[in-house]
């Protein structure tokens, strides 16, 4: 693939990754940081697990938003579906965590497939509205089915068994952290594979110029539905991780706030670059942990301002900003 066919303004990271599937050195960085964090911050491992789960969720969003260009505000529906699946299994006697993850992914994928089949033929505001409607309907249904889901009180009585029968979920959060890290690694491998594949590239084509994709006979709807389903499954896995590591599920897992937060964290890091979530999620969540505790009103204000500034001046998020800098530096002799 020569430079002539690559779109002129393609993000640098994607260019690099697409040009060679071989792992680049900088791709090891997030994993080294994550492992180092385990050793350096033993008291902050529960926050660390939340961050890892957030990265999985934002990764799922990046696949449909960054690569397929589907704007959705309802991704939490799949996150919550996964969480409740794992939660209900654990509350009714089957606390095995790994199979819980798989079950959650499957249920979320089914929900993604069914809802996607209905709504993915639309675009723009209509599609956005439909993703919202699905999300709200799922949340309402979970609230109504209080006898099953625990409703507003939350799902009680979850008992999650030790991972692989050996590693109990301890109060310090050590098992949870490593468990989430392992799952994130697998999810990342899968996402990377998808992005590099011909399928992944066709998604970028759909995002950049859908009319042309139709013209060359590419099955646009089917492709969008496929990635939507896959992303739903991954979001479901993230939800299951949350349920299993906290041994609790509340209705907030389905909320608009969760969808929105995942989106904001992705934007701050940079959309469509696969690594955006790895930057945006830790930044946002650590900042929130530090500052929102101090003054929540100011937090809302500054996050809003940051969002506007990012959109107006740094549309590619932090990674986009870094890329521009890198390009400028390479040009100067």
């Amino acid at each position, binding site marked *: 693939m020569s430079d002539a066919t690559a779109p002129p303004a393609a993000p640098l990271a994607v260019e690099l990754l697409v040009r060679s599937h071989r792992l680049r050195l900088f791709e090891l960085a997030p994993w080294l940081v994550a492992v180092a964090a385990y050793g350096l911050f033993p008291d902050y491992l529960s926050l660390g697990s939340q961050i890892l789960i957030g990265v999985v969720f934002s990764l799922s969003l990046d696949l449909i*938003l960054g690569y397929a260009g589907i*704007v959705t505000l309802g991704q939490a529906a799949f996150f919550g579906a996964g969480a409740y699946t794992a939660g209900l299994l654990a509350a009714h006697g089957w606390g095995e965590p790994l199979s819980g993850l798989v079950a959650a992914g499957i249920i979320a994928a089914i929900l993604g497939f069914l809802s996607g089949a209905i709504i993915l033929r639309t675009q723009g*505001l209509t599609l956005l509205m439909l993703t919202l409607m699905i999300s*709200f309907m799922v949340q309402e249904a979970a609230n*109504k089915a209080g006898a099953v889901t625990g409703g507003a009180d939350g799902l009680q009585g979850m008992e999650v068994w030790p991972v692989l029968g050996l590693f109990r979920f301890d109060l310090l959060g050590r098992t949870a952290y490593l468990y989430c890290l392992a799952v994130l690694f697998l999810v990342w491998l899968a996402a990377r594979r998808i992005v590099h594949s011909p399928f992944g590239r066709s998604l970028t084509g759909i995002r950049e110029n859908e009319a042309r994709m139709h013209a060359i006979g590419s099955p646009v709807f089917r492709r969008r539905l496929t990635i939507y389903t896959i992303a739903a499954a991954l979001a479901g896995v993230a939800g299951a991780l949350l349920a299993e590591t906290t041994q609790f599920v509340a209705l907030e897992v389905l909320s608009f706030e969760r969808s929105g937060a995942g989106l904001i964290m992705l934007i701050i890091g940079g959309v469509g670059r696969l690594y955006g979530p790895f930057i945006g999620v830790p930044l946002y969540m650590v900042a929130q942990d530090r500052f929102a505790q101090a003054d929540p009103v*100011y937090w*809302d204000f500054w*996050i809003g*301002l940051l*969002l506007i500034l990012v959109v107006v001046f740094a549309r590619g998020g932090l990674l986009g900003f870094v890329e521009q800098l890198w390009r400028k530096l390479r040009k100067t002799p």
Partner: protein
Amino acid sequence: MSAAVSIAFHGLAYAMVLYLISVGLSVTMGLMGFVNLAHGVFAAAGGYVMTRLINGYGVPFPLAVAAAFLAVGAGSIVLERALYRRLYGADELSQVLMSVGLIFMSVASAKFLWGPLAQPMSPPGYLSGQLDLGFRTFPTYRSFLILAGAMLVTLLWLGLERTRFGARIRAAVDNRRMAQSIGINTSLLFTWTFALGSALAALGGALGAEILAIDPGYALEHLIYFLIVVAVGGLGSIKGPFFAALLLGIADTGFKYLLPEFGAFFIYALTLGLLLWRPRGLFGRA
């Protein structure tokens, strides 16, 4: 029978408020193609201006409402020039995010300036109490809301049908390039339309403060209903959102009255169905 009358009455009052607030959003979305989720901020601002003037300075009700209309309209021009303008051609995601950022900032500011509780709102004496029509009584203020709303809607429709300004808006919504090529200054038109839409939202927020309390989270709490009215009504349409607001207002009230436990779910399902049947909205054209 009495149930039907109650539902129709309260639904209509609610619909008026929803329409006044949402019509501006429909026009700006249709005209400028801008997904402005922060539209509710203007409605809340109108509510705050009015309640602060009444509660803090004893300004009479009609004056306070007029002040809300003008002040927010003027303020929105500043916002349009400074911020919205930059993202007119941008992709949908950027617009969504920018408007979400605006909502956050406004929620935080309102909480900081006026506290987390809802602003106290009592209609003036001559608009309080009940109206006795013989066969039953109706809350006076809501009756006023229906009448005032109907008058404003009529004015709006006449204005858009009969004035040059209205003609220009309709032309630009229909075909922007064509409108520009016949000499319409679309940039100026955008600003004035945005101002009108925001001022109307402020009016809706102020008049509707009795039903939809003015608190810092207003723009977020009611966002979904404004979006439903616009999406179902059809972007760019003036009349479409009216029927959508009627539908939504009466359905919402009806469900609350007859089937409160499942109301929300059915509203969302209804919206889902309508949008799948008519993705461009009932009267959509943009």
